[in-house]
């Protein structure tokens, strides 16, 4: 087992899906430790289980077997309502397709996680402005997602992910839908969050260029992790 510096600990993790009579072993006896302050890139081919692993760490899915521990808490043993509460405090999730609510302004989108916290309206506003400032979009607070570029939308999504000051940032292909320039901006932002604010980040990506920005990279193939890509 890891030290106190370990934020995410995954032990003997199995995830099996069934498609009709077919059994798919997506993750097999997987072990992983992510220290606090790490920026880990998870790479691997499509269907290798990268997103499944991310979902299991976030408590969005249940493992078939094994343990998932984040910050000393057993995520796999929590009830649905405990998971929801836990996620609101500890997890910031960034999707490939940004997943902003189109009917809400950038400000309102970023505010969403704070609605679950016992904060006054003024306090929420202050936090939202700070998060938007971190991603460089303080002047776009009143814009709707349709009025923003893809890169800006993803930056709003990052602001939403960090606004409640979560313990862990989970990014599922955060640059997969962006052009190179926007990709660089987003990766630079994630790097800054890791280096300057000490955020622990686990990022799933296909892109070696994106993975290069992380502190370290692990490769997932056929349900198992390795430090080196398979030849």
């Amino acid at each position, binding site marked *: 087992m890891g030290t106190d510096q370990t934020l995410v600990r995954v032990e003997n993790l199995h995830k099996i899906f069934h498609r009709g009579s077919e059994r798919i072993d997506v993750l097999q006896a997987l072990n992983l430790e992510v220290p606090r302050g790490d920026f880990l890139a998870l790479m691997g081919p499509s269907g290798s289980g990268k997103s499944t692993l991310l*979902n299991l760490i*976030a408590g*969005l*899915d249940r493992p078939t077997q094994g343990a998932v521990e984040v910050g000393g808490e057993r995520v796999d043993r929590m009830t*649905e*309502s405990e998971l*929801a*509460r*836990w*996620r*609101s*405090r500890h*997890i910031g*999730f960034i*999707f490939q*397709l940004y*997943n*902003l*609510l*189109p*009917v*809400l302004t950038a400000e*309102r989108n970023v505010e*969403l*996680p704070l*609605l*679950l916290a016992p904060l006054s*309206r003024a306090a*929420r506003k202050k936090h939202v402005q700070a998060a938007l400032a971190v991603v460089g979009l303080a002047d776009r607070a009143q814009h709707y997602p349709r009025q923003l570029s893809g890169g800006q939308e993803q930056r709003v999504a990052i602001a*939403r992910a960090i606004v409640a000051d979560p313990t862990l940032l989970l990014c599922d292909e955060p640059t997969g839908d962006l052009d190179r320039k926007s990709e660089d901006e987003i990766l630079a932002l994630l790097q800054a969050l890791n280096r300057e604010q000490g955020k622990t980040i686990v990022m799933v990506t296909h892109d070696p260029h994106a993975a290069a920005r992380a502190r370290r990279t692990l490769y997932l193939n056929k349900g198992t992790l390795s430090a080196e890509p398979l030849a």
Partner: protein
Amino acid sequence: MKFWPLIWSALRRKRVRTFFTLLSILIAFLLYGYLAAVNMAFRLGVDVTGADRLVLRHKVSFSILLPEAYAGRIEATPGVVEATHASWFGGIYQEPKNFFPQMAVEPEGYLRLYPEFLLPEEQKQAWLADRTAAIVGRNTAERFGWKVGDRIPIQATLWRKADGSSTWEFNLAGIYDGAEDATDTTQFLFHYDYFNEARAFAKGQVGWYIIRINDPARADEIVRRIDAQFANSFYETKTSTEKAFIQGFAKQIGNIGAIIGGILTAVFFTILLVAGNTMMQSVRERTSELAVLKTVGFSNRLVLGLVLAESLTLAALGGVLGLTLAWWAIGRGDPTGGALPIFFLPPQDVLLGGGFMVALGLLTGLLPAVQAMRLRVVDAVRRA
């Protein structure tokens, strides 16, 4: 309240669809409110009639007259406090369509039996002092623009005068108001004595009796006792509580309550499908958004609550607007142009309408809300 922008923005997501759903709910509640007033009009305020009043009429038909002399025998019946009588006149003011109830009554007795008719004392005295004077309810007075002191000509359809003329003229001595919304303020009341002396036939005969009893709990017993006195006579009587009498009168037109109930059931069932379908579609289109909410930490129960709040908001908004519109339309007068003696939106139906709004909101929102609650984030994100 902090979730309100989220609920409101969900409703604004497809504005045209929300507008039409809102419109359909609005129309349903407009119809509900208006028909509630019509129903009340046909029940002639049956719920608010005096519990201590009985009505006595001829056993065979309301149209067969009764001897004026029955009054003394009725009043002598144990349990009876007082009795008065009224006779239907059924004349025409200017045009046949200008219908309103006109009755020959004993002024003092009638006003005592109907304390809900509020007439200023000086107008009452003026009415009592002038045998050709009449009083009228506020509703009818306003309908025809009558003022105290006006001379009102009424053309008889049945009651010709002994001198051969059929025009009866009355001095308007007073305008009465109702103590409650449900009080009939359409009646035109004039002296029976004047009517009896001047009419060409049927002198000494009256239309029906109104009786006050000392104990409403003993109404059945008193009714039996009164009717027993006149059994096997040419003028057999049928006495009933005023409530039963009015219900019977309304049933002559048809079971209005059942008809209205049928219409409203069909309307609300349709609305249930329309609004329910809207909510289902709305939730289906937002699976990825709901997944985001769950990802950031919204619990299943909170998501359920948000979807229910959305459907409740839609139902409440449409319902309140619909009832407000109904209230406005009802305030502009009844659809017959004043023939319905009572026409207002009863407060109990407004309350019931509130209940319908909640029920509609819950029923239309429940299924999509449960779907949203059960939504698994990984499935939703994969689908998106």
